[in-house]
């Protein structure tokens, strides 16, 4: 009996401690950051959980950008930017709590993130309510920027790059039949698959089959066998690089010779590391090319590998650009005021980032060139840059 009582006591103490913590520490009104020498900016992304690979890259990119800006004297005449990083595990409920916390408790003026579409959808509503701008590095769902005026992004949206690849396949490669293999648990993959299919069919191509897989699958033989039997000219695989590498390997294993294509999810050195020779001759659309010799790109890549001892996947440069864009907007807003910053973001014209030069359309989606890359001799090679 004694022991049980003890536990109840401990439970109560724990609750009390948590309550006190919230009441006195976390709850403390932070003085508005405008009066300080620091401008607070939030970052939301999955640093743990299944999508962590993208969240961490995006965060790394954003951190490099912020550090670079601070090192060069900061913004608004010498104020430093503080990046408050929060892990949402790719979860929507977490995102709600983080948004509330960052905006209400920490008084951030703007947020880089969230990284994936689901949480961004939820964050969009809160951003609109509280009138604090969010800039997503990598959320590609078509609709998210229409949900509120305070959402923008630096990446393509789903129906932006799919058509580019479809036209490229039809017009440049003169291929007529295609198969699609996508991840049906992933909205990004679905979006690209749909937009590709639509354009491809509208412009005279034929979609022979759409097959799906599930995130986390290791074995794609069944789908590939089915696709191979129809013998399509190309196979469009709008998925992430680690899945793509698997699919390429297994496709070549069963002797498929079709051309494989994909979207920006392919853009990682790990595609080549993973697929090896199987990646040769594939095409994908992306934001930039690591082979791009421009100073900005090379400098970013160098800093990234110095700081993190790794090569970024596509989320890295997008995180970098999102942070850079935001800093630029704060500078142009003239003061750390969320609404003014948002206005400044909307007015962004000819912004030059690692992933190219762009302005926003009316829905705050970047209008930028789509890079088409291929793999030759184990290296990414720039094929074309297209402005849709």
């Amino acid at each position, binding site marked *: 009996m004694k022991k049980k009582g003890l536990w109840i006591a401990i439970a109560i103490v724990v609750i009390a401690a948590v309550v006190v913590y919230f009441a006195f520490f976390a709850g403390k009104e932070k003085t508005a950051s405008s009066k300080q020498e620091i401008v607070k900016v939030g970052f939301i992304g999955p640093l743990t959980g299944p999508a962590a690979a993208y969240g961490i890259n995006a965060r790394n990119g954003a951190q490099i950008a912020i550090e670079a800006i601070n090192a060069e004297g900061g913004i608004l005449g010498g104020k430093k930017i503080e990046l408050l990083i929060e892990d949402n595990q790719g979860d929507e409920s977490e995102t709600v709590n983080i948004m509330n916390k960052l905006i209400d408790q920490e008084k951030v003026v703007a947020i880089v993130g969230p990284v994936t579409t689901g949480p961004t959808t939820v964050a969009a509503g809160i951003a609109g309510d509280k009138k604090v701008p969010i800039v997503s590095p990598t959320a590609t769902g078509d609709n998210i920027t229409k949900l509120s005026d305070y959402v923008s992004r630096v990446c393509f949206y789903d129906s932006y790059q799919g058509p580019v690849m479809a036209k490229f396949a039809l017009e440049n490669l003169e291929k007529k039949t295609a198969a699609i293999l996508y991840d049906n648990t992933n909205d990004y993959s679905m979006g690209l698959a749909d937009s590709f299919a639509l354009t491809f069919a509208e412009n005279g191509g034929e979609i022979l089959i759409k097959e799906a897989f599930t995130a986390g699958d290791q074995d794609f033989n069944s789908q590939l066998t089915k696709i191979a039997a129809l013998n399509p000219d190309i196979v469009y695989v709008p998925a992430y690089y680690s899945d793509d590498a698997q699919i390429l390997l297994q496709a070549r294993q069963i002797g498929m010779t079709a051309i494989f294509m994909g979207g920006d999810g392919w853009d990682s050195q790990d595609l080549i590391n993973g697929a090896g020779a199987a990646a040769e001759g594939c095409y994908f659309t992306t934001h930039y090319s690591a082979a791009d010799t421009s100073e900005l790109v090379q400098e970013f890549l160098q800093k990234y590998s110095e700081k993190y001892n*790794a090569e970024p996947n596509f989320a890295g440069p997008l995180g970098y650009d999102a942070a850079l864009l935001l800093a630029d907007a704060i500078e142009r807003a003239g003061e750390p005021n969320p609404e003014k910053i948002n206005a400044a973001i909307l007015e962004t014209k000819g912004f030059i980032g690692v992933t190219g030069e762009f302005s926003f359309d009316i829905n705050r989606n970047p209008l930028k060139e789509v890079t088409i890359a291929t793999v030759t001799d184990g290296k990414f090679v720039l094929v074309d840059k297209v402005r849709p």
Partner: protein
Amino acid sequence: MAPLCLIKKEGVEMGLFIQQIVNGIALGSIYALIALGYTMVYGIIRLINFAHGDIYMLGAFVGYFALTTYKLPFGVSLALAMLIPALLGMLIERVAYRPLRKAPSIAVLITAIGVSLLIENLAMLWFSPDPRPFPQIFPLRPLELSGIRVSIPQVIVFITAVILMMALNFLVQKTKVGKAMRAVSQDKEAASLMGIDINRIISLTFALGSALAGAAGVMVGVIYPRIQPLMGVMPGLKAFVAAVLGGIGSIPGAMLGGLIMGLTESLVTALISSTWRDAIAFSLLIVILLVKPTGILGKSMREKV
């Protein structure tokens, strides 16, 4: 007989069908390998060891580091990838499960979930959540037989699974240790009155099951050369379903369940649509449980009233 690929129209369909069956068997062998360990652990302490899938993941990582960082030969790497998870399995049992031997089974289940989450998150912390390409050991070019393609790793995994199943079955049915395992699984108190050190036997079972999971991890790395910290979650779940399907506690059942899972997934993809694959696999599980509540090869125990 004409090679399958030369048979026209219907013949091609037939060839495709057989190819899908081959695919299913290959995939099923992996599930079977993981399910074997699951079934052993469940059999002895009636615990759904949620951490089993994560041990399988660790096996893959041990193999990866042995092969790449330390450049060890494949055989040695495989041995290490079985040994380290085995030790870890024993450690987990000792620290997290043994103190709860008399606790309600649901508490142990929650602990197992905790262990699973812990391993996953530590792995993400240490290994980074980025997927890594597993070094390619065997040639990727498939063997081709009458138009049906099988890759060498697929054959190896299938054969390994069958051999391990037979070895385990022999161990459990015929050897002294095996009899002790069965005795412990049926009645722990009586087993200890036979002079059986039940803690040692349970420890051994965990070691064996975890070593199997580790081996499966390396095998998966060989066939599907990509590993990452969460790679054990879905296969772990499906392997458990496979074990239940075949009759949990039964070693041939685990093999059978694994193959059925693999074949179902492959044939659903081939005949219906891959998007419904998991739903149909789980429906099959429920139907089988309703018809035969203890699984296909499980012994049905009538409750004495």
